[in-house]
């Protein structure tokens, strides 16, 4: 019951933040440009066409009225129509979401499964060759431009060596769609070749996306473990003669990981932002590629819709992370 109250408390912050996001996007799209309608209409439109469009879109009404209309539309799930395909943007984004989710989740899982153990090892054997080697990886992971890393991996593994497919999600026909996640769908259909194909296509973009996240995780886990190792209860457990493995993997890790969970929210931001450019590099048919194509086509509505979508997803994830953090760390519940 207390947890539920806490969840409600977080939810109270969620609504103003979301509303704030809408204000920011509204100001950027309607107030900053000299003439937002001309932007939507495109460069070739005549003044008459622009005026007609202005009335049609309701941009001739006062800004507060426009804002309310904008919010009401969004609450109904209406992001407007793409200027290029004239399809509803919400439908386009929903159709592309599974691809982005599959890529992001796999990258997240890879970075967690590799990053956390490496961070622990780095802390346990600090100043060893392993620690120094990992430091090089964490420093490069945060300094490398992910789109460039993707291109270099493509160059080496797809173009030169031919070990991996260059781009796309799958070659040939995808398995029957149930979830839209190709790995899950092909596994459900017992389609071995499709599963292998989907996995091969996923390898390079997921590795590219996972690299900076992995660097962050190694760094934070290392710092967290080192921090906890100094604490009195570890000293006590050592003095009691508890096996080192038990101290490390049970007691230290559980305490060190609470800050790592908070990092996951941040991590998701890194992954989501990274996915925008990495999807474009690998022609991955997700919402990132959609955003980039919309930029190229000056499909202004679509870019706007993508921003609202990505922002909302991100805010929701942060909310979930907050709740997860309270579930894991009992100290948070008392405050």
């Amino acid at each position, binding site marked *: 019951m207390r947890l539920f109250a806490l969840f409600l408390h977080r939810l109270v912050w969620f609504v103003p933040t979301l509303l*704030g996001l809408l204000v920011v996007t509204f100001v950027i799209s309607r107030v900053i440009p000299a003439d937002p309608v001309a932007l939507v209409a495109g460069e070739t439109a005549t003044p008459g066409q622009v005026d007609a469009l202005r009335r049609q879109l309701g941009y001739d009404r006062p800004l507060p009225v426009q804002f309310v209309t904008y919010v009401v539309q969004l609450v109904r799930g209406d992001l407007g129509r793409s200027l290029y395909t004239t399809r509803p943007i919400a439908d386009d984004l929903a159709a592309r979401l599974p691809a982005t989710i599959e890529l992001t989740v796999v990258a997240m899982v890879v970075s967690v499964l590799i990053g956390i153990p490496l961070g622990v090892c780095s802390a346990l054997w600090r100043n060893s060759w392993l620690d120094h080697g990992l430091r090089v990886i964490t420093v490069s992971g*945060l300094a490398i431009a992910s789109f460039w*890393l993707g*291109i270099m991996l493509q160059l080496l593994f797809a*173009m030169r060596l031919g070990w991996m497919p260059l781009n796309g999600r799958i070659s040939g026909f995808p398995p029957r769609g149930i979830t839209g996640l190709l790995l899950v769908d092909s596994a459900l259909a017992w389609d071995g070749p499709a599963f292998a194909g989907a996995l091969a296509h996923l390898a390079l973009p997921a590795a590219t996306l996972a690299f900076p996240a992995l660097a962050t995780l190694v760094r934070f886990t290392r710092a967290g473990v080192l921090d906890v*190792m100094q604490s009195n209860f570890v000293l006590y457990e050592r003095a009691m003669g508890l096996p080192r493995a038990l101290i490390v993997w049970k007691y230290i890790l559980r305490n060190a990981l609470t800050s790592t969970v908070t990092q996951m929210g941040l991590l998701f931001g890194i992954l989501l*932002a990274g996915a925008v450019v990495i999807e474009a590099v690998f022609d991955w048919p997700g919402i990132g590629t959609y955003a980039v194509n919309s930029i190229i086509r000056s499909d202004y509505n679509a870019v706007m819709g993508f*921003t609202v979508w990505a*922002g909302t997803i991100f805010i929701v994830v942060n909310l979930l992370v907050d709740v997860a953090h309270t579930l894991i760390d009992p100290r948070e519940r008392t405050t």
Partner: protein
Amino acid sequence: MTGVWFVLARVGRDRSALLGLVLILALVVAALGAPLLATHPDDVFELHPAKRLRPPSGEAWLGTDRMGSDIYSRLLFGARITILIGVIAVGASLVVGVPVGLVAGYHHGWLSDLLMRVSDIFLAVPQVVLAILIAQTLGPSLPNVILALSATYWPWFARVVYAETRALQKEVFVESTAALGASPWRVTALHVLPNIVSPIIVRASIGMGFTILTAAALGFLGLGPPPPTPEWGRTIAESREFLPGAWWYAAAPGFAIFLTVMGFNLLGDGLRDVLDPRLRRARSAGDG
């Protein structure tokens, strides 16, 4: 001045921070001395179609691009754009974010809440996503990239300054200054601000790296300064259609971005160790 020398001496003893400093100095030298260091300084605007896509050689150290221009020379001039974007965007973020953080931190009430909620909203969305929207709305150009990056980075400074100011408020010297009748302006400007310069500098150094990465991503997406500007991100985007043949075309600018961002990150980490006594103690205890 002694403070500056103290910091420099400490940074000099930390090998990775020193490496960062050297990388940044190299970038500055490359940018300032571009006309002198470039082997083909006119190649930023001149085209040599006959020499296009040549591999690295004694004549073109890093090869030539699709227009036959020398990539090495264009990289040097690109460093100017990188520094310009980084310095102005981070500078503008400082100018906005630090006062916001100070005011929100020192005052308690609706203004403080409002300022921090606004910066929370900006922090709630990945920087590149908002920057894309702003740059797309305003149109691709150098000033617009800088504007998009400044508009999305200032909340980081506001956050840091806010937290530090709130912490300092409980210190005796701040309380007693206020009790002596100093105005809030005087307390914040003369007593709080000088004591939170360190975390601001650290944030600025890491922010430079972060901003340069985001700027490169915007350039790669075609939202940066238009051609023929030798912006690094755009150069990588241009090179893609000539892969796998012209590998040097894609490799060189990406490596330049990598070294630059690494320089600022390493320096930022090193400065944090030197300037923050709390972390220094934790670190020496942990690493010693």
